[in-house]
């Protein structure tokens, strides 16, 4: 359990305020970019629940993000706005349900096998959407009209409006963050931390470890589904690429870049990754080369990820080797 929590906590209201005020100053380009970062943060936090808090290195997390995004298109009428109250829970449920089925199989494996099997399942799902007409095949499918929340004749929320969409993303980011924080301090969260620390001992203490891991996996799948829902609504179309292993790899890199097992690190990682991607791809077509250099550097210099930078600097300044960072 993290001990140095106080320091990071204090910045949260400030970050929240900045995010809430940002659209007043930002252009539509930057609003969309920040929106994307917030969506990726939700996605990365959901993976951090597995990688950082439970010790399950999933290399197929895009599957849950992707199927949820597809479910938005499939649950929405072709030329009318979908009902937010149906489409949003539908997407979360889709992510969680697919995670449940996949989890039943993959959670029987450990370590490197777990990584491989999660990747294999994600690729299977990728090819289902890529090679069948279900979601428009390799071309993907358009979400012509984004969902709205309507009571009677009155439209309360319309995700086609960029401003409204931005604040919906922000609110859902806060909801996801608070939910995960609450979950992590609950008995379930402590049990997951125990599994990460010493799975064998958890078993001998009498915990049905498989069920706990499944609960974590399904929760992570559901939250990834939330991110997938928002992503589909942001871009208005879905392609099989959002299910591919590139996407799984990217989100894993975000978690590693920011620092595993901190949640805040997932946010920092998502921010750094998306911004660097944007900057590097403006510089060169081979942006992944530069990204690779950054990631290797961070992993070697800062094993605790970018979120450990303040503690690390403090340690250097004081002169002691603070390795808890």
């Amino acid at each position: 359990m993290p001990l140095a929590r106080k320091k990071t906590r204090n910045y949260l209201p400030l970050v929240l305020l900045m995010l809430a005020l940002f659209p007043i100053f930002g252009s539509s380009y930057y609003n969309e970019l920040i929106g994307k970062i917030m969506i990726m943060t939700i996605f990365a936090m959901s993976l951090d629940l597995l990688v950082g808090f439970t010790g399950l290195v999933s290399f197929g997390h895009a599957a849950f993000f992707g199927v949820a995004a597809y479910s938005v298109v499939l649950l929405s009428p072709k030329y009318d706005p979908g009902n937010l109250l149906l489409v949003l829970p539908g997407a979360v449920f889709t992510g969680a349900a697919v995670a449940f089925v996949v989890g039943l199989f993959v959670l029987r494996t450990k370590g490197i096998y777990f990584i491989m099997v999660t990747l294999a399942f994600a690729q299977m799902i990728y090819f289902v959407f890529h090679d069948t007409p279900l979601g428009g095949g390799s071309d993907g499918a358009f979400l012509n009209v984004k969902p709205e929340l309507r009571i009677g004749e009155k439209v309360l929320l319309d995700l086609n409006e960029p401003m409204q969409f931005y604040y919906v993303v922000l609110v859902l980011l806060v909801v996801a963050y608070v939910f995960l924080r609450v979950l992590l301090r609950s008995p379930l969260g402590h049990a997951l931390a125990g599994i990460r620390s010493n799975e064998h001992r958890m078993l001998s203490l009498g915990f049905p470890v498989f069920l706990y891991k499944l609960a974590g996996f399904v929760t992570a799948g559901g939250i990834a589904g939330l991110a997938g829902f928002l992503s589909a609504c942001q871009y208005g179309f879905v392609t099989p690429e959002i299910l591919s292993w590139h996407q799984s790899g990217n989100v894993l890199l975000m978690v590693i870049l920011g620092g595993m097992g901190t949640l805040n690190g997932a946010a920092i990682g998502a921010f750094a990754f998306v911004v660097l991607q944007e900057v590097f791809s403006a510089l060169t077509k081979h942006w992944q080369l530069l990204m690779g250099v950054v990631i290797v550097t961070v992993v070697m210099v800062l094993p605790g990820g970018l979120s450990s930078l303040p503690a690390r600097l403090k340690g250097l300044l004081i002169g002691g080797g603070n390795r808890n960072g």
Partner: protein
Amino acid sequence: MAELVLSARGMSRRFGGLYANKDVSLDMHKGVLHAVLGPNGAGKSTLINLLSGDLPPSAGEILYRGEDISGWSPDKRSRAGIGRSYQRTNIFPGFTVFENCRLAAQSRAPRALRVFSKAVSFADLRDAADRAIAQAGLAERRDVVAATLSHGEQRQLEIAMVLATSPSVLLLDEPLAGMGPEESQSMVALLKKLTPDHAILLVEHDMDAVFAVADVITVMVAGQVLESGPPDQIRDSVAVQEAYLGEGEPDDE
């Protein structure tokens, strides 16, 4: 004798052609401390692993309160009341002593669906943890991160974690290994205190400790039970002396 709690009947475990345990039968009663002695490689740890479910037996039965549990998983056996400690310290190194024991106690009242409650807010778990910590003599180290404990203290924590699950059977794999004389003494005192309410199986190399606490001693050699009986009988047994001295193996290397 008192109430029969756990027993093995003709239990065997093979690794390839090698029998780690062969046709082992023994009984554990409530209020009886049953010690298992034997030279290294005699199959003592395998015996505990078979009883706790860490290893499935190749043959034979394990009866817990009259029910055959040989097919049960380790977590199911633990929930039923069979607690074990490990020869090699097996704790949550990054957690405090308290959290190690609190989590152990949580296994008895999982409340996994109480997602909106704080794990540390449940008084019953906190009490069970603190009780176990006090019993194992770690009260002063309660809020220390387990990884920073001394080896002997980690052994004490190992026991505290089992106690926090309020088991009725205790399978203790060399709890005294690596303990200083003082710690050993308090552990022996603790074992005596625990015996009336538990059925205890003690695997231990420390002969003095074993003869001080054991009510029944079983001697194993090469995966088989050589002799079983009260301490006096074992002390005087010719077969046991031969087994130990004949092979030139001292008792506690």
